[in-house]
């Protein structure tokens, strides 16, 4: 290796291990009644191996040492499956990378000197509780409206008595993988919850177990979705593009079909 190449190599190495300094513009809001607004913070010495939330931990520890109220944000499992974390980063739910949650976003996706804007999910049906924490209980109520098979514990047939084609089981699994984080709602210009509802309706409409209540389920869940104040779907597809689990837009097509065929033949409503 020539001297020049060697120095280039070292310089490159130095850049890669260099710590980042960043400017953060973060939404602060004391409670649901507070108007809220952005505040700017500087963070330094951020390693690229840190997760985005660990970078917030560093900032919060700094704030706490200064006696300032830490930034509240939802998080729990920090491995992309509980669906608790919910940051709107630079105008995109869960940040710039696709198919991951905020907790899986690592600082190597940013560069030194970046300004990063962080907001809560914005949707009428998800009121802000504090800072970046929102109330997503509307999702629970939609599931309560029919996102299940009506079976009690016990008295069920042997698991292998219901053969299910592998392709069907796999497709149901793809829909069932939804973590209920609400990124679909945050991504949608109308704050529609169609993808969330479609995922659950699809899972159960595909499986033989879900057939008995297929119609009422689609009707009841959609009715609850509307009652919660989520917006209408215009098939833009932002929800699916931003979904950390990659729930397909096909599920929405299936939900529409399920809903309309239920409505057309409904004995329920």
């Amino acid at each position, binding site marked *: 290796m020539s001297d020049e190449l060697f120095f280039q190599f070292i310089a490159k190495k130095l850049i890669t291990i260099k710590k980042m300094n960043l400017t953060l513009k973060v939404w602060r809001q004391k*409670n649901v009644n507070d108007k809220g607004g952005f505040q700017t913070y500087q963070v330094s010495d951020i*390693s690229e*191996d*840190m*997760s985005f939330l*660990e970078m917030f*931990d560093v900032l919060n*520890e700094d704030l*706490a040492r200064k006696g300032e*109220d*830490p930034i*509240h944000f*939802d998080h*729990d*499992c*920090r*491995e*992309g*499956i*509980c*669906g*608790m974390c919910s940051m709107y980063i630079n105008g995109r739910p869960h940040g710039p990378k696709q198919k*991951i949650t905020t907790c*899986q976003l*690592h600082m190597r996706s940013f560069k030194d000197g970046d300004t990063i804007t962080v907001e809560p999910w914005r949707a009428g049906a998800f009121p802000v*509780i*504090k800072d970046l924490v929102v*109330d*997503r*209980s509307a*999702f*629970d109520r939609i*599931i*309560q409206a029919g*996102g299940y*098979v009506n*079976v*009690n*514990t*016990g008295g*069920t*047939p042997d*698991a*292998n008595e*219901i*053969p*299910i*084609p*592998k392709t069907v*089981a796999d497709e*149901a*699994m793809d829909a*069932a*993988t939804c973590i*209920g984080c609400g990124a679909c709602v945050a991504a949608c210009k109308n704050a529609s919850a169609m993808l969330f509802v479609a995922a659950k309706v699809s*899972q*159960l409409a595909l*499986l033989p*177990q*879900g057939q008995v209540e297929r119609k009422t389920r689609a009707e009841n869940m959609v009715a609850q979705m509307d009652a919660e104040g989520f917006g209408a779907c215009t098939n833009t597809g932002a929800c699916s593009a931003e979904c950390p689990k990659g729930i397909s837009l096909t599920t929405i097509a299936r939900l529409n079909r399920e809903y309309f065929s239920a409505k057309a033949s409904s004995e329920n409503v």
Partner: protein
Amino acid sequence: MKLESKIPEGAIGDKWTKHKFNVKLVNPANKRKYDVIVVGTGLAGASAAASLGELGYNVKAFCFQDSPRRAHSIAAQGGINAAKNYQNDGDSVFRLFYDTVKGGDYRAREANVHRLAEVSVNIIDQCVAQGVPFAREYGGLLANRSFGGAQVSRTFYAKGQTGQQLLLGAYSALSRQIKNGKVEMHNRTEMLDLVMVDGKARGIITRDLITGKIERHSAHAVVLATGGYGNVFFLSTNAMGSNATAAWRAHKKGALMANPCYTQIHPTCIPVSGDHQSKLTLMSESLRNDGRVWVPKDAAKAKGLSAKDAANIPDSERDYYLERRYPAFGNLVPRDVASRNAKMVCDEGRGVGTTGLAVFLDFSDAIKRDGKKVVEAKYGNLFDMYKQITGDNPYEMPMMIYPAVHYTMGGLWVDYNLMTNVDGCYAIGEANFSDHGANRLGASALMQGLADGYFVLPYTIGDYLAKMPYERVSTDHAAFEEAEKAVKDKINTLLNIKGSQTVDDFHKKLGKIMWEYCGMARNEAGLKKAKGMIRELREEFWEDVNVLGSNEELNMSLEKANRVADFLELGELMVDDALNRDESCGGHFREEHQTEEGEAKRNDEKFAYVGAWEFQGVEKDEVLHKEELVFENVKLTQRSYK
């Protein structure tokens, strides 16, 4: 105090059936006269709350997360065991029972484990009926894979997201009961004390995490399904919010804590990358079906070796140490064995990566053998997760892994009915000291959580309630008043210390002490030292912690402070228990007690008992009670996976 395990008489295979017939029943019309509190909505809590609601009891359920669907059971990846023998490979209820007792290094209660194996088959039926999309073969029947500590394929799975799918199944059953009005759900609410009336558990005190409101809830029985205490180590695979507070406060009200030193260190986690680390991420054990664990034979070549350069080490210079030392089980030895071996090779200086605290988990042979597509279908989401966190692509280079705290086998002592020694207070799932002995086998936690919640507790709790009067205890009762005041006082004390260190400062310090002295390997001198250090740290905490904000708001600093205060007490008890258990067994490895080959060496004559501790006051040593373990069906042998 005499511990009564209440194990039914009779042959092991008949005990549960007979017991179910012998327990008292509550008439369907009378069930609505009883209120049951369920704290925690993971697999155990959600399945229990749903099943009790279906039976007709009035259930109040609580979780600290914003939805019951987010409890940490959701993160379980690999699978759930059941003795279905669908693979025709010689599995049976007795074999699952035998494997579990052996896997737990003969420190579990035989009768409980057998019952667990019996009901395991019902769990799969139940979940399939709910629409849980388990993996299937092309013929449409259920697929299985094998897990550590077993030589049969009995693990059912849904990609690498089995916990998620099972929890969503239980959550859907729970949601149905919420809709039916049989379960009153309290999200973002944390239990801060157990209320005792006339020697019985009759309610809890909670804090609404959004408003800070301290509330009283009365019931005829209280079920704790609050998970494990792995976060005492600060770094673990637990969720950030997982905590011991509910269980610990029940302990302080009289419930015994059993085998607290039994912690499971999971062998396949992503290594620590720096001081900023907030948690550790597990890579499912299922990866060991196809991944081969190795380090270089030569320590000089291991130093600083990155995954990218691993390919430069020829096969002849690699030490596939698990395959070499345990030819029968190979890479699928139980977790404690795999973890200890990883520590051993790293202690020899053969660990890889920048820290030297990592070993390789290599899929290149599997990819060569089966093709990338097959490997991707099995582990795709896990590979993606690994790449996301480390920046390395496991299709092209080996993963780097290292053991991390994952699960706690210890917990509240319970009898055969899953009731603690406190009348009316039950503990289910990971929260109890459970069926896993000194080491839990992979894919058994999901099984136990759902067994307790769907198929055991709904029977056994009826036996207790049937003997209870219908009368409700008013929340104006002096016991509620007193408990509420104690909770409020504690919160006020925390808020008014206004010291100079953050809650996390203390939590990290405690974690380091626990990992160093009460982690993968323990010895007398280290444990004694740790005990002193924890006491000092606890003292410092109550003098110098800085908890910001007020009680009357969403205050995560206060939430954490409450939890860390309890960890600082529990940590000392773990050390006491580890000191007392002067033997090695399962996840508890005392360096003084090992075979010539470095395997855990039990002392059955002296330690074949459950160590259950009774609280005496914070600065006082707890009192040990022993439940002798009787083995009538499994012969105690030196555990061997060779």
